Every structure is written in C-alpha cells, then in structure tokens.
C-alpha cells in the first residue's frame, strides 16, 4: 500500500510541477510578432552558434522591411530528425514560408516536400536541400570563391610562394558543404598558378568537435611529415588547429588558413600564429534569404536561372542550380579582424 501511495504522490507531483511550468512557459514565449505581417520560420542546423544567430538577425531586420515576421528556432544539436519536428511545426502553425539550413539534405526532404504540398514555400540557406524540397538556395558565397580564396591565402604565405604540400582538415565526411568545397579545391589545383601545390590528404574527423579535429590533425601531421600547409574550411577545425599549433609551439612550421569565426580567431591573429582566414557575411546571407523568401511568396521568384530580385539595394540573380550567391568570401587579416561586424 505504501509503495502505491508514494507513486501516486510522485505522479501528482509531476502533474503539478508541469502544470505550473507550462503556463509560465506559454506566457514567456514570443508567439506573435508584428501584427499583420506574414510569418516565416527560419531553421538553422542548430542554435547557439554565432553564424546562425547573425543570419537570423539579418532575416529579422530585412524581413521586417518586407512585411515578413521572421521567427527563428531549431534543434540544439545537429539533428536532421529534430529539424523535421520544426518543419512540421511551422506548417501546422500556418507559417507561410520555411527558411532552412539543412543538417542532412536527404533526411529533411520528405518533410520539406510535404510542407510544399501544404502551400508552404521553402528557401534554403547556408546548406541546401534536394532540389525537389525548395524553390531557391541562398548560399553564403559561391563554392568557386571559397576554393580560390583558400588556395590564394595558403599559396601566398608558402615559402617559396605557391609551393609545397598541404592537407585539408575538414569536417565529418557526410557534410555536403565540405564535400563540395574540397572537390572544387581539387579541381582548381589543376590550374597553372597552383601547379606546385600538392594536396596530400583530406582529413575527416569522426565528429564536429574540437577534440576530434585536434586528434585527427595530430595524426595527419605525424603521418605526413612533408606537409607545410593546412587549410581548414570549418570554424571548429581552424580554431582547433590554431590552438594545437600554439600549444605545441609549431606555428612557424605550418601555414594555417581556412574559414574561421573572427571572434574566435582574434587571439591567434594577435599572436601571429594565423595570418589570414576567410568567411562570408552571415548577416548578409540572412538578409538575402529574407528577400528571396519575400520574392518567392509574391510569386516573382520561381527558381528559374536568370530571374532577379532586389535586396538592400543590390540586385541578386538566380544562378544555375536555382542558387543565389549572397556575396564574396571576405578575407580577414590582423588589420581588419578587430573591426569585423560579427
């Protein structure tokens, strides 16, 4: 009998506790934005990192000018299955559009196609879906721009210039952005300018954690003693590599460059361990995504190559592959890393 009563009490406790939390939660959340505006939902790969927060800010400010209320939310870890929950929620809540950076294009596709069937427009940003699951894709910058910037940053610092062996410290092998960029780097290496640069190995750590990036880098450098250059096209990877070189006091031995977060990389620039890296402007990417969504909702943009729309005074054009490029990769050096607006 005693056991039973204690469980009853436990259950009653849970019910009461939840009952007290739920209304508070419901009052606390921002359910509605500016009245009369069209609700669209922006879903990042996961929340809590600067690039997506900036993209959301861009979407909010530019969206507001266009009569869009850009809501923002997503999973806390990079989970495509969780993203499906958010897609479904947006459809069920009657949002008119979904802007999404896909964790995994294939996994989210059925949900995106289902959303489109319910009249919800889909614009992808940062990381594309399958073509059947969206109208247009807004990329932060073009693959060509990234590959070329990476090779130029590395080559110009090599001694002698544009000569030597290098590795790419990438992300997980399934990351579609990384695969595309690295493929472009390989293709560009055939150009005359880079003919004396040799890509020895592409390193794919088992997860997107700094710890795994570090141990993978360590193994790769040990296995390839002739390497003098490292390109890391991930914000996690380049920061982990910079930390590794600093800790082991071998900054002068290697040229490290890639795609990084200015705030995170500032100390390594100051200590002269890293001299240049690149990134695109995520706020701009969010703005262009909002403009694209607005144009799609208005029926002016259907994803045909050559179609165009205006965004913050700039004319954006749809490229082959239904892609819109939000700008060029921005190179950061010691001179401008402090003034980066993000």
């Amino acid at each position: 009998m005693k056991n039973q009563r204690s469980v009853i009490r436990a259950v009653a406790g849970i019910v009461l506790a939840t009952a007290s939390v739920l209304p508070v939660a419901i009052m606390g959340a921002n359910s509605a934005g500016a009245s009369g505006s069209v609700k669209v939902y922006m879903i990042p790969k996961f929340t809590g990192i600067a690039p997506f927060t900036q993209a959301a800010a861009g979407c909010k400010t530019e969206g507001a000018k266009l009569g869009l209320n850009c809501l923002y939310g997503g999973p806390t870890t990079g989970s495509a299955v969780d993203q499906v929950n958010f897609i479904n929620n947006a459809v069920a809540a009657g949002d008119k559009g979904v802007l999404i950076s896909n964790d995994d294009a294939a996994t989210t596709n059925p949900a995106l196609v289902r959303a489109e069937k319910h009249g919800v427009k889909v614009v992808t940003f940062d990381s594309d879906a399958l073509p059947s699951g969206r109208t247009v894709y807004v990329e932060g910058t073009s693959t060509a721009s990234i590959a070329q910037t990476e090779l130029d940053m590395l080559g110009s610092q090599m001694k002698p210039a544009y000569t030597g062996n290098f590795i790419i410290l990438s992300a997980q092998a399934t990351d579609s952005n990384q695969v595309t960029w690295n493929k472009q780097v390989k293709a560009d290496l055939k150009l005359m300018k880079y003919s004396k640069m040799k890509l020895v190995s592409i390193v794919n750590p088992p997860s997107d954690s700094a710890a795994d990036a570090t141990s993978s880098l360590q193994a790769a450098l040990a296995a390839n003693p002739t390497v003098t250059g490292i390109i890391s096209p991930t914000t996690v990877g380049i920061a982990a590599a910079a930390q590794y070189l600093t800790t082991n006091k071998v900054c002068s031995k290697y040229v490290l460059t890639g795609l990084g977060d200015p705030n995170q990389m500032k100390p390594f620039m100051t200590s002269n361990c890293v001299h240049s890296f690149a990134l695109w402007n995520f706020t701009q990417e969010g703005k262009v995504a909002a403009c694209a969504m607005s144009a799609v909702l208005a029926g002016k943009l259907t994803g045909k190559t050559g179609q165009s729309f205006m965004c913050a005074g700039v004319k954006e054009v749809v490229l082959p592959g239904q892609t819109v490029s939000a700008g060029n990769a921005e190179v950061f050096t010691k001179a401008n890393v402090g003034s980066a607006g993000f």
Partner: protein
Amino acid sequence: MNRLRHAVVRWESGLVLLIILVMVLGQWADGDLLSSFNLQTTALNSVVLLCLALGLAPVIMTSDIDLSVVGTLALVGVVIGDLTAHGTNTWLAIGIGLAISLVCGLINGLLVVLFDLPALAVTLGTMGAYTGVSFLILKGLAISTFPSVIVSMGSSNVTGTQIPFAVVLLIVFAAILSFILHGTVFGKSVFAIGGSRKAALFSGIAVNRVRITTFVISGLMAGIAGLLFLGNYQTAQAGMGASELLPAVTAVILGGVSAYGGTGTIPGVVLAAALLALLQSALGLHNFSGEGQTMAIGFLLIIAIGLPPLSQKYKDWKRRRSASPVTVANAVLSSSEEGK
C-alpha cells in the same frame, strides 16, 4: 506483485493526465496542436524513437543497457538500402536486414552475459563497431531512393485514414511486447532479474538466457526502427538515427521503467513517447527554440526520476519523527525490505 501492478497503473494514469494537460494547454495557446496534420506528422516523427524505446525497455528492466541500438539501426538501414539499390528483392533485403539486427543483438547479449562484461561498455563499443561497418559499406555516401514498399511502410497512412501505418504497426508490436513482458513466465523472469540478479539465479531462473533474449529483442526492434527510418526519411547513411538514442532512453525512463531495473510497463513507455512528442510539438508550435524544448524535457525527466525516492525519504523522515525507537527500527526494517 499485485501492489506493484497497482502502483504502476498509477504511474501510467499520471502520464495520461500529463498528456491531457499538454493537449489542453497546447490547444488553448495555439489551436494547431490537435489539427490532423500536426498529430499525423508528430506521430510519424516519433515512430523511430518509440520503436527504439520499445526494444530498450526489456533490457533496462533487467538493469542492463543497450547503447548500440542506434548503431544497429544504421547498419540495418544501410544494408537494406544498399541491397535494394543493387537490385536485390525488397522482401529479401528486409529479411537480411532484420536477420542482421538479431545477430547484432545476440553479439551484445553474448559479450555481456558470457564474458560477464558491463553492458554500458560493451554496447558503447558495439555502437561504434556497427556504425563503423555501415560507414564502410557506403563509404560516407548516402542512399536516397528506395522501393515503394519500404517508403509506404514508413510514411504512408492506413488506407482511408490520417493514421500512419507505422504507428499502427508499432501499437501492434507494443501489444505483443506487453503480453510477453506482463503475461508470460519470461516476462516475470525479466522483472525478477531486474529486481535482484542473485535472487533470480537462486530461484532457478535461467538468468543468462533471459538477459541474452532481451538484447536480441532490443536488436530486432532497432532493426525495425532502421527499416521505418528508411521509409520515413528516405535516406540511408552511417550516421542515421544517432540523435535518437538519448530521447529513446528518456522515453523508457519517463515511462516508469526504473533505471535500476525491476519495474516498468510497455504501455508506460508508449505513453511517455506520446507525451514527449506532444510536449515538443506544443512548445515548438509556440515558437520555443530547441533550448526551451530540451530544458522542458530534461526538467520532466529529473522530476520523474527524483520524485519517488524523495517522497519515500520524506515519509521515512516523518515516521521517524513521530514514532518511538522500537517502531522506528521496525519501520526501517520493513522499508528496506520493501525497497527490494
């Protein structure tokens, strides 16, 4: 035993109450929670989680754990995907996939029981191993076209309704598992082993065989989860389903299965999975981001695990305060007996 059953029934009614509460509050706040689209898609997106949880429950009831279920899920998904992509008959491919899941479960069971190794360590290892094999099979690539049989199994509705076929399938599985665990000698053995492995051994229960069987059940359910994952998300790759491990364990514990083994019911696990799905959907509809949802679920879980021992402690303390030394000694004795 009768008392225990009563207690567990109360646990489930608590979950039902919570589900109703979430439904009412959620519907009141946004009005879209109970729309047929939302219920259908929410159910569909919880299928993989529930399938894993159903398989995990018997293992946790015997006070073991199986972390490798997501590895098995990926391996089965990848094998079925790879076979069908190369023209193998769909049903044959499904058969091979599910057979592999049985083997995966058997390997776990044998390693844990025969070599007397901790289940946590063994299944952590096999999780990596199974995921690794799936990675080797596809070499990091993904398959995204599947035979229509598999797709409709995972994502279509029962003809003429809005009810996903996979959900019906899982309810049937849950009913079968319920019968096995709550209506057979095998089920009694599972709970006895979870209560006290030694006592179960001394009372003549084939502890090793029962424990191995729970791992095989867990493997098979993970394999079925892999099959349903293919149909629902139409993608097969090495990392698939990895994010579903912790939510599945959450559903099992929230369902009233003690993390120490020995108690719990299958209907409880089903209700907990439904509660988690509805809560997540209600919060999502109210524009809560992932952090808010994760916090709410974590909060719920801590209360679920923490309240029973807390209320027990409180009662002991109250009794000790009001009783004479002799009755205190008796109470302590009896409560320690009941704790078993």
